[in-house]
């Protein structure tokens, strides 16, 4: 079938791609826009490695059709840091030693950022619920939970000042 032209926003930049409408957003990001920070771990919505924010909600980008993207707004891992200044979540994951192979980490950061954007003071249960769709095989998760907690604290402190 014919390709269609879709215009949407990625990390605050407007982009237009010509693509098959059934191409997953994941492939559009990685292949057409060369944003390879979003990872593919299963292609079936089961691992969370491809998580991005779509209109301020986390989704598995492997399950979104390109055809559904017109006018939408996407944030990927490449849009999380502010230039060279890391987001507090990124800093906390590094400081807590929560990064091992790193393959799940972009998805984890997106899910955690979404949580913190909506809930400045999440408890452990809320953190776990927000991250339940992001599988990690290396860390045992406990340093990831700590990192989300400590970054939440940091964000709250900087907001107070």
């Amino acid at each position, binding site marked *: *079938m014919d390709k269609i032209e879709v215009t949407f926003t990625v990390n605050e930049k407007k982009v237009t791609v010509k693509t098959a*409408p059934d191409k997953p957003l994941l492939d559009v990001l990685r292949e057409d826009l060369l944003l390879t920070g979003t990872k593919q771990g299963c292609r079936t919505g089961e691992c969370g490695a491809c998580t991005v924010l779509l209109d301020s909600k*986390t989704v598995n980008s492997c399950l979104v*059709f390109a055809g*559904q993207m017109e006018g939408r707004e996407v944030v990927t891992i490449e849009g999380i840091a502010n230039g060279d200044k890391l987001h507090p979540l990124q800093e906390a994951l590094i400081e807590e030693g929560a990064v091992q192979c790193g393959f799940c980490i972009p998805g984890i950061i997106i899910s955690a950022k979404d949580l913190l954007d909506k809930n400045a003071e999440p408890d452990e249960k809320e953190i*776990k619920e927000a991250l339940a769709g992001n599988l990690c095989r290396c860390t045992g998760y406990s340093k990831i939970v700590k990192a989300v907690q400590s970054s939440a604290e940091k964000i709250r402190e900087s907001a107070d000042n």
Partner: protein
Amino acid sequence: MAKFTYHAPVTMSECLGMLRDNPGAKLLAGGTDLMVKIRDKLIQPDVVIDIKSLDELKGISMDDEGNIRIGALETHTEISESKLILKKYPFFAQACRWVGSMQIRNRGTIGGNICNGSPAGETLPSLYILNAKVHLRNDSGKRVLPISDFYCGPQKTCAYKDEIVTSIHIPAIKGKYKGAYRRQGRRNAVSIAMTTAAAMWREDDSTPTGKRFSIALGSVAPTVIMAKNAEEFLNGAASCSNEILEKAAMVALEDASPINDIRTTSDYRNELVYVLVKRCLKDIICNKGVE
């Protein structure tokens, strides 16, 4: 490389026309099931109609009589966070939280979940005990089906090929009531349930206990089912003692006909039916009802 034609209608009439003209078309809402099925080549539609932008399929609202309407495109996240649902039917909100992961709940819709029709569908047992109604529409008109009449077989709905589910309606309950939902999966998150159960009582003078019970079971038959024998037993019982509730859970086993599959065995499903029904009943008996 798409092997199907993709349409994204912006009005309902446009959509209904497309459905009329393309009997093999598949509707695309959240895409969380459809995308996987197409990729696994379980289905190979010629036409996919993306209904995400049809505003008429959105919204959660309650009319003056207390009837609730949930648009078919409402996501599991939206339902589970809806103040209205949380207040009226918290067990249903909870059931929606058991669907997949946050990412899936943000995308997957109630319409998609009921049309997928998996006997393990998390939202279905609650909708069964709430006597929910499915509103359907095609080019020539509208119709309504009780949720329990919506399925013609495993993962097969009775919707016509040109019909679209527009909304789910939960009729108002007069007087007090209390519901509960329980399920068990292989892990504590993002897992398809091995068995599910929902139970509810509503005030009713015509039974000895003053309560009329409904119980629904999932993943123990080709579709979600009502545990009719167990309901009947409870509605005729003299009290709601622990003993009676346990007996009712035993009776529920007569209603279930589970199979062995990739997720677990029929024996274990029977164990779960007993335990989950018993616990649901205790949940609703040991706690006060809401009005």
